[in-house]
């Protein structure tokens, strides 16, 4: 790790001011992502601003909405009874994230901002347009078994690694962002940017902005949401393909669906066409198969990751069948 200045802050305003005053500064909460990347020389901040003393740890229901403070730890949210009852897809996605130790450390805000696990991004000896714009993409014709099949470009095919963000995108969560002149809300479905020709621009956050928390809007049938994750090991592994689903089923008919995919997209992948196809469709396997085909429409394999396209369809079908009960 390169030397850096360490700044401890105790309020949102102080943290924002520190970010403005200290050059090339980054916020640190759990540290599980940024310290790892700093050891590998991928991230080289000149200052880390410790925000752990900020009062952003609440996890609570507010008029049916779920509010999650940015500094709540994954394990705290996963263990929350209201989360498990009202939004099980979130609890399951968190239970299946990382390891118990990392879930005790990692913050919700840091999780949605985590960088890709692409081995080329993480190895400074290789080309990567996300880490070093213009240097090329090593994964395109290289080791790409874990890479994305949706939302890719010739500049970048790195998969987004978060499980939580997939559940939050399915449930249309909103991110609350603090900046010097106030706060703004960004729907998570518009928060992430496709790589296009500028894969280094990953999301809507601007330098010096800070996530305060996330609101998951009330949704009665989210109580029947679920998250299905396929991976190389039973635990402690990133998704090959995953699906977060909520289904409103009455008398054998789907009234509404919420669908997002993980492990296959360059961003947590919302599937609005599949949702529309399921509305008013019979709650049958045939409907789910058609929805899965639509959800993966436009997917492109790069050789080693071709298997992710049929796998993601099967994972989504399994998730829809599970949510339908």
């Amino acid at each position: 790790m390169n030397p850096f200045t360490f700044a401890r802050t105790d309020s949102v305003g102080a943290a924002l001011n520190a970010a403005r005053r200290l050059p090339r500064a980054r916020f640190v909460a759990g540290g599980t992502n940024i310290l790892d990347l700093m050891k590998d020389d991928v991230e080289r901040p000149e200052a880390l601003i410790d925000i752990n003393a900020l009062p952003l740890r609440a996890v609570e229901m507010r008029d049916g909405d779920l509010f999650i403070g940015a500094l709540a730890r994954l394990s705290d949210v996963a263990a929350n009874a209201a989360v498990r009852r009202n939004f099980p897809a979130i609890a399951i996605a968190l239970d299946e994230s990382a390891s118990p130790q990392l879930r005790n450390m990692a913050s919700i805000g840091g999780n949605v901002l985590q960088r890709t696990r692409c081995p080329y991004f993480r190895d400074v000896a290789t080309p990567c347009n996300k880490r070093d714009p213009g240097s090329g993409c090593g994964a395109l014709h290289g080791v790409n078994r874990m890479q994305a099949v949706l939302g890719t470009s010739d500049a970048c095919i790195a998969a987004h690694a978060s499980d939580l963000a997939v559940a939050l995108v399915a449930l249309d969560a909103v991110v609350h962002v603090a900046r010097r002149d106030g706060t703004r809300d960004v729907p998570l479905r518009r928060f992430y940017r496709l790589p296009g020709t500028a894969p280094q621009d990953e999301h809507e956050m601007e330098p010096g902005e800070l996530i305060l928390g996330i609101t998951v809007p009330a949704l009665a049938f989210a109580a029947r949401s679920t998250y299905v994750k396929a991976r190389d090991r039973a635990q402690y592994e990133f998704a090959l393909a995953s699906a977060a689903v909520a289904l409103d089923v009455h008398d054998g008919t789907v009234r509404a669906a919420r669908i997002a995919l993980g492990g296959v997209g360059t961003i947590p992948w919302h599937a609005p066409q599949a949702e529309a196809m399921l509305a008013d469709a019979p709650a049958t396997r045939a409907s789910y198969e058609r929805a899965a085909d639509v959800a993966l429409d436009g997917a492109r394999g790069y050789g080693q990751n071709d298997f992710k396209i049929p796998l993601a369809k099967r994972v989504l079908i399994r998730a829809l069948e599970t949510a339908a009960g």
Partner: protein
Amino acid sequence: MKRRSFIVSTGVTTVGVPLAARAAAAEASGSVKTAGPKATAVTLKINGREHAMTIEPRVTLLDAIRDYAGLTGTKKGCDQGTCGACTVMVNGRRVDSCLTLAMMHEHDEITTIEGLASGAALSPLQAAFIEHDGFQCGFCTPGQIVSATAMMSEGHALDEQTVRTQMSGNICRCGCYPHIVDAILSTAKSS
């Protein structure tokens, strides 16, 4: 003041802030305290004892425990949060000490493998690891035992499947998992 070399800079909150930023600035009654990049005096409370050390901000909790407090029971395996050999408890919660900075834990209660025994008397789980032969090379063992100690207090030592799931953050390349599970379940049963 233990951190004499910290530059306490209150009052930075309004200087140069445009009028439009007063909403955020009004909230900025707090302070910004900076340290480093040069070494700074820090005190960590490990196993109930205070350890004074002079460290740079980039020193991880793991390196502070091993190289500055001299407690080498906690092991450095992967140094990237993959193996769990560096597991310690912070305020009773198990964490990977390689992926957090020592400076972030000045007011925390840190427990390492050295803090589990009472004098010469091993903790029940430590004794069970010996009885059930829960290790071969032993390198992952301190992390396994600290992690399992925290897991039992979380209430997760229920059955083999749950133990295997909840111990997934600790890798044993000798493959002693069956004996580790036996040691944990026997300890949970008898406590």
